[in-house]
């Protein structure tokens, strides 16, 4: 949590200061309005009494009157401006947090990124980021305002009665600080517990529903619900005890405030009686206390979110920032690359004998094998998406252009530019043109149409209402798996990868079309080193094409 607090104060320091100032003006106006009004009517009552008793006194009705009007206005305006300003700060903060998180995630080595595609992980990320609002709205502004108000109240009272000011400030500060610390201490664990229960229940429900087809036919759905219901009961209990703890702390604080109010009332009334202060001041002091109470009272509920926020912040914390990211060596296109693998846990054949993979410039290498033989694992190794330690353990040698290289360095780094068509199609929400030209800057439309033609998407794209500007993804047009596959292929055709790794590139595309597309792109492929992964020699590969083959069976 400290990490995010730091980030908050570093980036938004000035805005926090302004926001706190605005909130303070608002709260100050509120308390002052009440105080001044109370003083005013008591003073006028006393003045009225004296006048009717025949005394002549000079009482300025208009100064306090305009003061009251001023505070009424400044409170209203202050509240509006403050809310708007602080919400804007929050949104800026979210933007900073997002960018920060995004940069951090993208600095992670590839192999750790695969988790990010998980929709489950993503929705957690959103919820966690949202929870960080509390850092500003709950944990920063309210306590600062409370303390500032107490201090300014004390300063004000010290002009009238210094001793009382000291006691008052001491008492209120004690209440504020103990309310905050007590709330955090008593609810943090329960807050974390309930956040993590909700999180586990999510996983349970997803699992339950993913299995609904099998469970339903077996009539086992209800039986399987027991996992979820158990946790639900636990959640109910946790929440009940957390709520009651918060309410009890609130009750305690309220009691303290009632005690304070009672003592203050007795003290000021007695002081009036012995004529230490006048009646109007006495009423003003009580109303001031009342106004301060209202501000302090919100503290327990604000800080009850501590556990939940802690849980989220903890999950978002930078995971081993000092990741031993593979330092990119001088990238140059290797003419030949030989990797020898030994005893890789996911590649069965390497358990039996060392597996040698040879990539030669501009040659086509087919890696074939049954499902589960380790094709995708091998593809990930070649593209540098596998765990470094994994590489160190199982790669016995890397030979580049005839020279042996240190195994510590990742394999993929020998290529400045890799094109990798993974098993998943990744189409980003955005226009079709955006999807194709992502990261390439300006690119001519003609080029886009050329590659679309190569993957036989041009007819489809022409038919779209907005052509290349058609929005794809969640809030736009849905495209089929086969189309998405071809979009990912077309995307690579716009680039100039030296090494191309195609993991079953024509999945979901019928054989005839696959053959045509292969034909369309074959001249482009000939200029690069291509690794093709497939069960067996694919039918779309013309029979006359000479290939190197590595069998994993």
């Amino acid at each position, binding site marked *: 949590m400290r990490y995010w607090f730091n980030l908050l104060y570093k980036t938004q320091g000035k805005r926090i200061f302004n926001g706190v100032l605005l909130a303070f003006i608002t709260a100050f106006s509120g308390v002052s*309005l*009440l105080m001044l*009004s*109370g003083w005013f009517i008591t003073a*006028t*009552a006393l003045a009225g009494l004296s*006048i009717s008793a025949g005394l002549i006194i000079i*009482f300025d009705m208009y100064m306090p009157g305009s003061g*009251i009007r001023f*505070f*009424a206005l400044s*409170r209203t305006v202050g*509240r509006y401006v403050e*809310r*708007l300003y602080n*919400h*804007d700060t929050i949104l800026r903060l*979210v*933007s900073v947090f997002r*960018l920060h998180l995004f940069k951090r*995630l993208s600095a992670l080595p590839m192999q750790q990124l695969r988790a*990010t*595609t998980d929709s489950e992980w993503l*929705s957690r*990320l959103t919820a966690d980021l949202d929870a960080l609002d509390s850092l500003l709205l709950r944990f920063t502004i309210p306590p600062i305002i409370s303390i500032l108000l107490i201090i300014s109240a004390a300063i004000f009272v010290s002009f009238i009665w210094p001793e009382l000011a000291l006691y008052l400030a001491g008492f209120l500060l004690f209440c504020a600080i103990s309310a905050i610390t007590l709330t955090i201490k008593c609810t943090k664990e329960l807050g974390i517990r309930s956040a993590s229960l909700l999180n586990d229940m*999510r*996983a349970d*429900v*997803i699992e339950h*529903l*993913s299995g*609904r087809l*099998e469970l*339903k036919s077996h009539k086992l759905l*209800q039986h399987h619900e027991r996992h979820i*219901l158990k946790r639900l009961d636990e959640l109910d209990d946790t929440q009940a005890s957390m709520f009651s703890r918060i*309410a009890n702390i*609130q009750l305690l604080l*309220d009691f303290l405030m009632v005690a304070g109010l*009672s003592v203050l*009332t*007795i003290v000021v009334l007695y002081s009036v009686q012995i004529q230490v202060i006048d009646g109007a001041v006495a*009423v003003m002091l*009580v109303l001031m206390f009342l106004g301060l109470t209202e501000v302090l009272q919100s503290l327990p509920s604000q800080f009850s979110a501590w556990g939940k926020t802690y849980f989220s912040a903890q999950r978002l914390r930078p995971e081993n920032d000092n990741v031993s990211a593979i330092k990119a060596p001088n990238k140059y296109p290797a003419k030949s690359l030989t990797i020898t693998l030994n005893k890789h*846990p996911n590649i069965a054949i390497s358990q039996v004998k060392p597996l040698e993979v040879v990539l030669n410039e501009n040659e086509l290498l087919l890696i074939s094998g*049954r499902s*589960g033989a380790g094709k995708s694992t091998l593809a990930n190794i070649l593209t540098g*998406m596998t765990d470094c330690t994994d590489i160190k353990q199982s790669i016995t040698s890397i030979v580049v252009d005839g020279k042996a290289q240190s195994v510590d360095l990742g394999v993929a780094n020998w290529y400045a*530019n890799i094109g*990798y068509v993974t098993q998943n199609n*990744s189409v*980003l929400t955005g226009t079709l043109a955006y999807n194709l030209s*992502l*990261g390439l800057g300006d690119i001519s439309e003609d080029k886009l149409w050329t590659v679309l033609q190569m993957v036989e998407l041009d007819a489809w794209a022409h038919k779209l209402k907005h052509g290349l500007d058609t929005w794809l*993804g*969640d*809030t736009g047009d849905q495209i089929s798996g086969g189309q998405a596959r071809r979009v990912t292929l077309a995307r690579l055709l716009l*680039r100039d990868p030296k090494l191309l790794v195609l993991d079953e590139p024509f999945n979901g595309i019928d054989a005839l079309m696959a053959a045509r597309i292969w034909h369309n792109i074959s001249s482009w492929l000939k200029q690069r080193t291509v690794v093709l992964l497939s*069960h067996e020699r694919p039918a779309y590969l013309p029979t006359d094409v000479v290939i190197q083959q590595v069998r994993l*069976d």
Partner: protein
Amino acid sequence: MLSHNKKRPAEQKFLTGRALLNHFASDKKQVLWLSVIAGTLATFFLAMQWISFAWMVEDVIIYQHSFTHQPEWLILFICSAIGRVVSTRLQTMFGQNASIAIRSNIRKKLLLLWRQQSPLSSHLHSPAAAATQWVEDIESMDGYFSKYWPQQMLAFISPLIILCVVAWLNWLCAVLLLISAPLIPLFMILVGMGAEQLNQKYSLIRQRLAGHFLNRVANLTTIKLLHAEQAVFGEVEAASDSYRKIITKTLRVAFLSSTVLEFFTSVAIASLAIYIGFSLYGAINWGPASSISLFSGLLILILAPEFFQPLRNLSQYYHDKAAALGAANNLLKVFNEEPKQQSEDQVFTETKTDAKLKQSTDKQNITPFPNQQPLLNIHNLAIGYSPDSVLADDINLQVKGGQLLAITGESGAGKSTLLYTLADYLKPLKGNVVTFPGKQMPIAYLPQRPWLKNASVLSNLEEFAPNATQEQMRETLIELGLNEIFGKNHNGLNTMIGEHGQGFSGGQLQRLALARVMLNPTAIILLDEPTAKLDLSSKKYIYAALKKLKSNAILVVATHDLGLLDIADVHLNLNQKEGVEGAVLV
């Protein structure tokens, strides 16, 4: 134990999210009302507290009595302050208890609906989205039940109590408060309408910007592979910034509504203070001004903000309500879907108007349940998701125990749809499916990508075969060629199956799923492409297992695999209408 045996009351339909919330709130109405009563008591004590305070102040300041002159006022003051605090605690407690119970009820009800409805319902297509509803959406209803619901009652009751006290003191002040009260909701509605309009205007762009960040995170691998990080950094920043600007535009209007309240509260205090001050000074002589004393003046002044406080609370909880309504509206689709009818008469869905069908039924003279052997009888069946798009029509066949029915056809011909219809997930568009044993008995259905829990092999097997012993499990796994599990690198039955089946190949997962069926075989077993994308050795194990399973059951297999056709007894090609190979002649 089974859900379909229970008598279900007529299902209730909810037209709006609000109706749904009210329905569930009514279950805990007593507790919620207790919360309202406690809140009312709190207001009552509040009035008492300040009456006694104002009394003491007047007594000491105006009449210059000692404050111990009438100690009962001091005691009343302290006691009512304590009473108020305790009542507030009770109000919170009742509200929260009700909220916990209600949310638990909604969650259980949702599980029940999921159980009753077809697993193919569109709202279940994304389990993650449905889980979000079950967890987050329902969680977001907390504020509505625990705070907003009692407060919407208190927003009437509490101001009324205060108004009575004020009216008793000075009718003019009461009139002033009374006039301002209805103005507040009026202004708030106007402001709310304005905000809604802005919301609508930016709805699509807001959705896109909101989803932007997550989408880019999800595709980070692709972005990195394309070396587009720098471009996307800029995008993320720009998108968040435009999002902020749009939201701020909406908030500018939306926040006006609470400002209206704030304004009235401030103005009421200010104008009352000035009116009371001038009256006490003697500058105002008309109306009830002359009756104002310090007691009544001070009391009115202190009570005025409390008159508005319940409304302010209500508006503070307003976003709780909005969140709950949004969540409830999301749930409407689930709650209003027709629960799947499981009663017997529905199984025989015959199109009565189809005279031909009736005739042919008579002609065939089928005896559906001969001597306890499993039987599957498909008659004049038409399948599909809607009557407008019939995938396959006039399917007639009969399969007995010990037979394997292979369904082939191009992709999209309706193989999976037919399996869904047989599993009773989908109603036939026409014709009927009669099975023995009936639809109440469990059947096994194995989809193309089997479901495996993120748990040990043991608990995965146990989930479907609670009675199987560990020895049986071990034998079955070995029979299916999964010896590896008991090898060095694994942990036997305690081997964990990771999320998304990590650590196992597709073929191994498929066989694990089949092991569950073998350990607890049912009379009818439906398999969707059990050998697709598998290598030969995996396939061989599956063929052998299917042969074994076949002896006591009906197997229905949707497949492309020619090897599987070899062990099929009946072959239905959905692309060729005519001729059902090997089918019992009908």
